[in-house]
């Protein structure tokens, strides 16, 4: 193929070169794969090793026996409650956030709102705000409203960072849907809202799914606010429960790894199913702007 460009190079040399480059490719691929996966592998492996295989200066690559009884222990230590709390908070945040963001994202994509330009900029700018800037006043407001120590308080607080991001992503999606569609629907007699509700929303399905996933993951992983707002053990979400657990069991590495595994595996499985939507959502949100 490259013969016309480099007449001097012999075919044998070209093959050798290509072979070397493909060897390098595989080597790089293996290194990257190990970097990505080894910590996970090690986490799961540690969680099923007997203690004598864990507390040893020379690592044990395959456990002398498999110990699974840490898992029921971890579940007993409150993880079912944490899981329930995390599910409630993530679901609540996602639902509320999506309703707000879909309406606003649509309006920002379609209507000539006063100050629209600034609104859009402002929404983008909120991504700059470190959570810690919001934390102290929200803490006081929630306290005065009696919402500290309730999952509702956390859901409301999460809307602060979920809404702008999802508005942004959804606006990108709405922009990519031709406006003719609504016009056609309106000519057919739909109201404006009806056109949005029945024609555009279904078309924006992938976008809504993508932002739902974003919202869900952000709420699922959030740590700082959950740590600050909720103190009672029965209200903790998974990240805080896990951090607390690692403090309690600071030397029981196996149990900590078992707890981490329990926390991680559902997310990983979920991710494997939805990642495509996630990247396209990201690209759409980032590029259309």
């Amino acid at each position, binding site marked *: 193929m490259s013969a016309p460009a480099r007449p001097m190079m012999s075919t044998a040399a070209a093959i050798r070169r290509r072979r070397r480059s493909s060897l390098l490719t595989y080597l790089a691929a293996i290194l990257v794969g190990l970097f990505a996966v080894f910590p996970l592998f090690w986490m799961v492996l540690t969680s099923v090793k007997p203690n004598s295989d864990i507390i040893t200066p020379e690592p044990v690559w395959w456990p002398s026996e498999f110990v699974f009884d840490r898992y029921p222990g971890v579940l007993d230590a409150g993880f079912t409650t944490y899981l329930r709390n995390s599910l409630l908070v993530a679901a609540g945040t996602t639902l509320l956030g999506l309703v707000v963001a879909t309406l606003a994202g649509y*309006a920002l994509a379609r*209507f000539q709102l006063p100050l629209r330009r600034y609104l859009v900029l402002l929404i983008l700018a909120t991504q700059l705000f470190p959570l810690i*800037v919001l934390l102290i006043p929200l803490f006081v407001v929630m306290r005065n409203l009696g919402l500290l120590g309730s999952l509702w308080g956390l859901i409301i607080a999460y809307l602060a960072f979920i*809404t702008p991001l999802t508005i942004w992503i959804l606006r990108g999606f709405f922009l990519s849907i031709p406006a003719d569609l609504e016009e056609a629907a309106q000519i057919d007699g739909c109201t404006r809202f009806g056109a949005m509700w029945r024609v555009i929303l279904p078309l924006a399905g992938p976008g809504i799914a993508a932002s739902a996933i974003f919202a869900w993951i952000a709420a699922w*992983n959030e740590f700082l606010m959950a740590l600050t707002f909720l103190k009672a053990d029965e209200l903790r979400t998974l990240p805080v429960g896990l951090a607390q657990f690692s403090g309690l069991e600071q030397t029981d*590495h196996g149990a900590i*790894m078992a707890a981490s595994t329990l926390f991680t595996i559902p997310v990983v499985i979920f991710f494997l199913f939805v990642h495509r939507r996630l990247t396209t959502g990201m690209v759409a949100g980032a590029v259309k702007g």
Partner: protein
Amino acid sequence: MSTTVPTGRRQGTDRAAGPPAESRRARLGRSYRNMFDNRLLPILLVAPAIVVIGGLIGYPVIRTAWLSFTDADLGSLISGEMSWVGLDNYVDALSDPTLRRAIVATILFGLSCVVGTMLVGIAVALLLNRAFRGRTLLGVLVLLPWAIPHVAASLVWRWIFNDQYGVLNWMLSSLGFSSLDGYSWFNNWLTAFTVIGVVVIWQSFPLVSLVLLAGLQTIPTEVTEAARIDGASAWQRTRLVVLPMLKPLLLVLIVISTIWDFKIFDQIYVLTDGGPARRTEVLAYTAYREAFTQSDYGLGSALAMILFVILIIATLLYVRLIRDEEEVR
């Protein structure tokens, strides 16, 4: 679509009132409807978002800015009684060596993480763009670190970097770095920051790679092929042809990474708790600590505001860069 006309109309226009009668009223109804559709509806649609953003972001930011000029503490925060102390908190933040170090660390550590994330991310994206067996598998594997909650990821890496029983020290010392046998990564602020950086990069490079990969695949093969025929080496093709085409995407990713990496909290909380001796604190962590564990909400607010200002400056710089770039073109 035409079958839905009557229902759509009836449902949507109940405020236009009454059964359809003569054409004049219908026209009037339509003009009300137009006004509703074009004036009121958009505002109604945006209103909830304005309330959420105004109430949950706008108010708190202004409130934090205000608190940063006061001596708010546990009691005064709730009673509302606090005294105005002017710039005292900011003076404290800039003169106290620990706090000043946290400010510098935020910037340097944040930048290092952005650079590291981008380098690893670009390299992996280029790798994934090559044709080799197992490419799809690698694409999925690379995704995993992103999926793992920060707290869990930090715990796993803390265990890997454990001085006595950590697998990393064993690997390194068997590779010949015998001085690393039992080496304590968390004793020294530089190595401790290195560990935190590794965890941050490990979790943020997948996004960069996957977005860039999507971008790479939009580059027509003719372009790179042409460069190849012109005799450009693989490295030259990447540097001179591919990366410039991805520039807009790269800039967006850099902005996103900056915003994320300057705000790191979870990883530090789990990995070092700011230690040794408060040497691995960055602003998000220090602000939390001063406010919530030392009950000095005024100082905590001031530190939070400083972080905010740093982020604004960084972003403005990027925006400037992007604009200059566009003007040159």
